[in-house]
């Protein structure tokens, strides 16, 4: 009897999950994770550390939901409390499917053309650098290789950053400020005073 009502309750919660997840804005702060068995209790924190570094792009993207899986957990606050009273053993069974730590998440809108979805997904993945990272970790690279790779990446990054401000006015301003700085220095009197004025 308890099992049937439990099933009905959980299935009635699913439509609310799917409809709400589109509308609710993504909360950046972690809600208190539910009391899970100790094995999986590490997973909320792990996902944040794992996905925050590599999926920081997904935070910025306008489409992707950008929240860690805990956002789904926030849909069930009332459900969890009721469940823990009604049937404590199965109270947190719906948390079982929130275990995966993802690198990139793309929320699919309705009636999105497949090309657009693919393009968005590919762009997100490229920003997260998943495939690059995979290829790098396939085989071991010694210190030499690692140094080479890092210099290459740094050169690429610097070139991209130095190429950005190609605004001429900005460049002129920078030159002027540099000149002014040198002039200010010339006003300082570094010459020694005359002999008579020096105290002995």
């Amino acid at each position: 009897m308890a099992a049937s009502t439990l099933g009905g309750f959980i299935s009635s919660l699913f439509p609310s999950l799917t409809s709400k997840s589109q509308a609710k804005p993504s909360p950046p702060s972690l809600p208190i994770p539910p009391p899970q068995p100790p094995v999986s209790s590490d997973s909320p924190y792990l996902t944040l550390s794992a996905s925050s570094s590599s999926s920081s792009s997904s935070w910025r993207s306008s489409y992707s939901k950008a929240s860690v899986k805990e956002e789904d957990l926030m849909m069930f606050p009332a459900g969890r409390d009721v469940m823990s009273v009604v049937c404590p053993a199965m109270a947190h069974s719906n948390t079982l499917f929130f275990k995966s730590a993802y690198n990139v998440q793309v929320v699919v809108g309705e009636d999105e053309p497949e090309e657009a979805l693919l393009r968005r997904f590919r762009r997100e993945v490229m920003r997260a650098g998943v495939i690059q990272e995979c290829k790098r970790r396939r085989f071991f690279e010694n210190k030499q290789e690692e140094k080479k790779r890092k210099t290459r990446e740094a050169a690429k990054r610097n070139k991209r950053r130095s190429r950005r401000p190609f605004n001429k006015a900005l460049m002129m301003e920078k030159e002027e400020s540099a000149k002014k700085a040198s002039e200010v220095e010339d006003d300082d009197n570094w010459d020694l005073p005359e002999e008579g004025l020096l105290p002995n």
Partner: protein
Amino acid sequence: MAQPRARIGSRRNGRIGSRKNARRIPKGVIHVQASFNNTIVTVTDIRGRVVSWSSAGTCGFRGTRRGTPFAAQTAAGNAIRTVVDQGMQRAEVMIKGPGLGRDAALRAIRRSGILLSFVRDITPMPHNGCRPPKKRRV
């Protein structure tokens, strides 16, 4: 004394799926594991219990042709066909691994008419863990 009784009870809870052939799952998860040599598409329910699977190898491709995007497409199509008959409407997609099958499988899933809620990439990333094998000198 209490243990045999508890074991039977747990077995009944866990293995019920194999008794009913047509498990009606309206919402499921499609896992796509795309490696360089092969693509495996597994359809599970929300909790992760496998409903059906298919791979490029089982679709008749062998050798280097398993890793191609076309093979991934047929594998995805195969896997979804069995599940759509069981009445699955919504699905999440979890993609793992580098490989050419990623985009092709996603395209095939999209084309099959199943509503997608999320598309996630769950490629496992070590935080500098195990040492990978040595470089190939080909």
